[in-house]
């Protein structure tokens, strides 16, 4: 398993993205796989920093674990923000007119399009989001 722990500030999102992209590159994954993993990690980390830490997470962390399993890559993202399950919110509707849309919710919506499994749990005082991405066939 590969692991990265960064402070909960916005400029660290790119560090997290590069960590995942480099692993995918080293493993010989194609551009699409890398993009879908990168965008997913970006959206989750940005949500944690903006909403969980309210842009005040310099003394808190985001931990990313990557397990390269035979069929899937499993990403586990842990944060110390107040308990929140991002999977309980309704998905935004892409067909809804702009004026009727609520702002937000698109990040996790994109993650749902790109990942085959998403699960949330709260353990040891941390939010824990698990994403699974199937390997290209």
């Amino acid at each position, binding site marked *: 398993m590969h692991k990265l722990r960064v402070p909960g500030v916005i400029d660290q999102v*790119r560090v997290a993205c590069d960590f995942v992209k480099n692993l995918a590159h080293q493993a010989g994954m194609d551009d699409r796989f890398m993009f879908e993993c990168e965008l997913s990690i970006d959206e989750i980390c940005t949500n944690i920093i903006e909403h969980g830490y309210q842009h005040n997470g310099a003394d808190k962390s985001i931990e990313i674990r990557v397990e390269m399993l035979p069929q899937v890559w499993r990403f586990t993202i842990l944060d110390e923000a107040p308990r929140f399950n991002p999977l309980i919110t309704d998905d935004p509707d892409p067909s*809804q007119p702009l004026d009727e849309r609520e*702002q937000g919710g698109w990040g996790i919506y994109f993650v749902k399009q790109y990942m085959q499994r998403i699960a949330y749990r709260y353990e040891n005082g941390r939010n824990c989001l698990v994403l699974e991405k199937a390997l290209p066939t």
Partner: protein
Amino acid sequence: MMAINVTAHQQVTVVEVSGRVDGMNAGELGGAIGSAIDNGGIYLVLDLSQVDYMSSAGLRELVNSFKKAKRAAGDIRLAQPSERVREVLEMSGLDTVFRIFNTQAEAVASY
């Protein structure tokens, strides 16, 4: 990582963006477009041909800028989004909100 170049083509303001648009710098893009609108440049073309990555934070700024332009009786039209940017526009249904053109010249000429 991101560069913004704003130029006037008669009544049309062209905003050329290059690089990566994400949560770290999306506000900068929104600010640049907002300033152009405040200065009277309400007919905008956003050239995305050199943007290789845009997250939902970037889309949020596009939507806010679009609403601001519409309130001023203007518009924002997109030129040449890359494959990856077009993909996130389509996933969020914004490809039916914005008018999207294959080239900057076509987008400018559409006004």
